[in-house]
């Protein structure tokens, strides 16, 4: 099944990432380092990663993105309403039963 293949691929990729990581921390950079060895701005790095994660999943859920609601305003573009969404949400629409 395609879904099982997808999940298994994700698990394998995650495992390879885990194996790539050193077991003992050498410095305290919570979001890694630049190429020159300086610590990356942790708040900025977390915000960028969250942004990529959410913006690459625009149709994940009608309940909203996987983020606390008080931080969801920056993703309001995903709420933009479009023609075909009306049909998908409000049902079959033809003949005597047009969509709104």
């Amino acid at each position, binding site marked *: 099944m395609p879904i099982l293949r997808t999940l298994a691929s994700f698990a394998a990729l995650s495992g390879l990432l885990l194996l790539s990581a*050193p077991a003992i921390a050498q410095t305290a950079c919570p979001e890694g380092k630049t190429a020159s060895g300086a610590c990356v701005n942790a708040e900025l790095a977390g915000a960028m990663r969250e942004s990529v994660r959410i913006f690459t999943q625009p149709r994940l859920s*009608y309940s909203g993105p996987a983020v606390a609601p008080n931080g969801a305003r920056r993703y309001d573009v995903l709420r933009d309403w479009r023609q075909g969404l009306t049909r998908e949400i409000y049902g079959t629409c*033809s003949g005597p*039963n047009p969509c709104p």
Partner: protein
Amino acid sequence: MAIVGVAVAVVPLATSLAWSDSQWDVAYNQEVRYFSWRGDRGFPAPFTAARGGGTQVYFPTTVIVTGTAPDSLKFQLVTRGGFVSSRQTSPGLTGSVTTPTDTVTAATLTLLSIPGIQPFVALNANLPTGRSVLSGSASFARMDPDLVDIATFGEGWNIGPTVGANVALTPDVILAGGWGYTDRGRYNRENIVLPAGGVGQTTVDPGNTQTVNASLGFRHGPLRVQIAGSHVREGATTFAGVPSVQLGNRSFVSGNGSFAWNDSSVTSVAASWSHTQKNKALVPPFLTEAFNSNSNVYRVRLEHAFNAPGWSFGPTGSYLLRDENAYSSTTLQFVPAKTVWSAGGNLRHKPHDSVLLYANVERLWVTERARPAAVPNPVPASHYTAWMAAAGVTLAF
């Protein structure tokens, strides 16, 4: 099978090696949101000539677990669920529903050990804990998504892997990008037969999507800016096995920024633009429509915060424009040109490092252009007003 074998062998071994020196944090957020609207027509507007209104109360709950092994790995699990009670009181379109919402979750694993680049993988999912079949008058509890947060109350299992990376050019300048795929699962939904409401059921198999994203973020003194652009390829949705709708591919750009004038005064702005290409016809024959029936949507939001020790408060305002009436005679669908203005304020209080209390309230003014060709009844230009209010608490452990 080979891929499964690799995963089973690698993951436990790698996990035990990576987390020997790590820190774990947990955050819990509970919020209550209230929406109330009134206007010239109920929803959907072509099916009533009477003034309409509705309310929605939404209780989202979010838990975030984060584990960090500095310079090594970062793991984060975000889970958001909730409960919603929605009621439309428009004459002829009265209905209500009270239900858990679907639960959305995301697990992200980031590699931190490569100087200059931090790749990550994320597995996102929508769990169908909500309600997708609304029989009878309950189907009228679905309301305008510009006026309430939860426009519909459930769908199927959606699984969405994302692969991406942060590229740290400097400590305060980061390029980021990623690719995501969303496999949207099949679910049952009622047939809408107006004015009766939900009658019978049908199976919806929504189209899957692929998305690419590129982002830039930087900090420079008191200035913070993030910009992101995405392109989405949409798949076809079927009803009872029959191709029914395929949205046009979509592009959008979203940005946010803030400027700290001093320690006690910060201005924030967020803006976005989205564009959708032509849809594939929503009724047979399944062909690309002759003209683009989608609108461009523009949003801008402005906030200002006055900060004092442990407190923050200030005004907010926003504007939304959907630029054209979008009507297709082949699809019998109409999305009107719309403007939405809002004005309000927010308040935040942090009595302790691990506790955040907040509240906000907004008043909305909505104007929709006339829909002279709407089916079954033409709709004149319509005006709506709404209140949105929220209060919440975030606890950190």
